[in-house]
């Protein structure tokens, strides 16, 4: 699975971008915020967006399984 993803990594760049933005831009930054109880838990508000991103990433992987590698 991982080698398949690595071989076709370019197909996953939009998902990687969103996960990176979410992780560094929001999650890591929220850990730096003191005196705001609940700011980290507020991240739960992004669950719908994260779910859609993950669904799209899984669909992309399944398409690759059907169609073969795209970067060859």
């Amino acid at each position, binding site marked *: 699975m991982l080698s398949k993803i690595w071989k076709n990594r*370019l*197909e996953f*760049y*939009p*998902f*990687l*971008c*969103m996960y*990176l*933005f*979410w992780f*560094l*831009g*929001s999650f890591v*930054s*929220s850990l*730096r*915020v*003191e*005196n*705001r109880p609940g*700011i980290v838990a*507020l*991240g739960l*508000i*992004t669950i*719908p*967006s994260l779910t*859609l*991103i993950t*669904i*799209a990433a899984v*669909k*992309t992987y399944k398409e690759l399984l059907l169609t073969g590698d795209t970067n060859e």
Partner: protein
Amino acid sequence: MKENSPATVFMSSDKEFDKKFAFVAYGLLILIILFSTYLHYYQPQVLNVPSNVDVSTWKNPSFEHTCIYGRMTEAEKAKIRSEGIPGNTIPEILFMEIFALFVAWLCFSHARKHYGIWMASCFLIGSFVFTGLQESAWILFGRFTGRSAMQGLGEAVYGTYWFTKGGLWFIETPVSVCLGWFYLAYSCVWIAGKAFTKKSLLWRAAVGGLIAMGLDLWTDPVVTSPELMSWVWATGDFIRVLGIPQTNFVGWFLLIFCFAFLWEWLPGWEEKWGRAKATNNFFLILVGMDIVVLVFQVPWCFILRSILVLAGVDHGLLIPQGW
């Protein structure tokens, strides 16, 4: 381009035109960035750039008229007054710029593979300019007039907002923010297309805008907190969600929604007018759309305010209360 399959069409290349277009478009963009950056750091009086060190010099809004002021403890206010904007260091700014460049490069590679260099460049430069102009117009309007798109409800309006941190600037918007708009818009619309393969362009553009807005509901309260203060909002909006004016979330949605439409119409325009004319018209319409989105905020805020007044609300709403 087939309306329900945004990811499948690779635009043929017209090497001669693509080369000229890239030279002119990227060249102009670099010149504007260099000039804006020079103005921001070496001639800050021209655009009234607020000081990151001495917050007592802020006008439109003053420090006391920012959204964050009311949510700060006395100790936090004293710290900002004595030390200025937190995290305004070269390593932190450099990290932001490199991160934005890296992520934008990932998206650009993906776009180039799926749509070709011309479409990918139109997305990159188009979204960069579209959002950079929009943000800068909004920032400068607030800064120079002390007004916004709305009339306050129970409190005066003191301007709009501005960005405090950035390395390179496009007018008054950090380049990292403009690149952020590019990779967010591209990824969100792509993801919406993947998740809902058979849906129309309208649906994909709307879902793309909503994905971005959903992420921003967390990002904005975090990065505008007293510990980071990456941008600063003026008070005056009659609805604040998690301490952020509602106009911000409307803006996030509209920018991605409108840009997705314009960009997906581009292949059709190329077929109709040829690549050169399609490119010219794309950028002209982009600027026109920028003005429309800006002006839209006026009736939007008027209607929203009228509904609140009719409902008996006499002061700005904070959602949730006490945030």
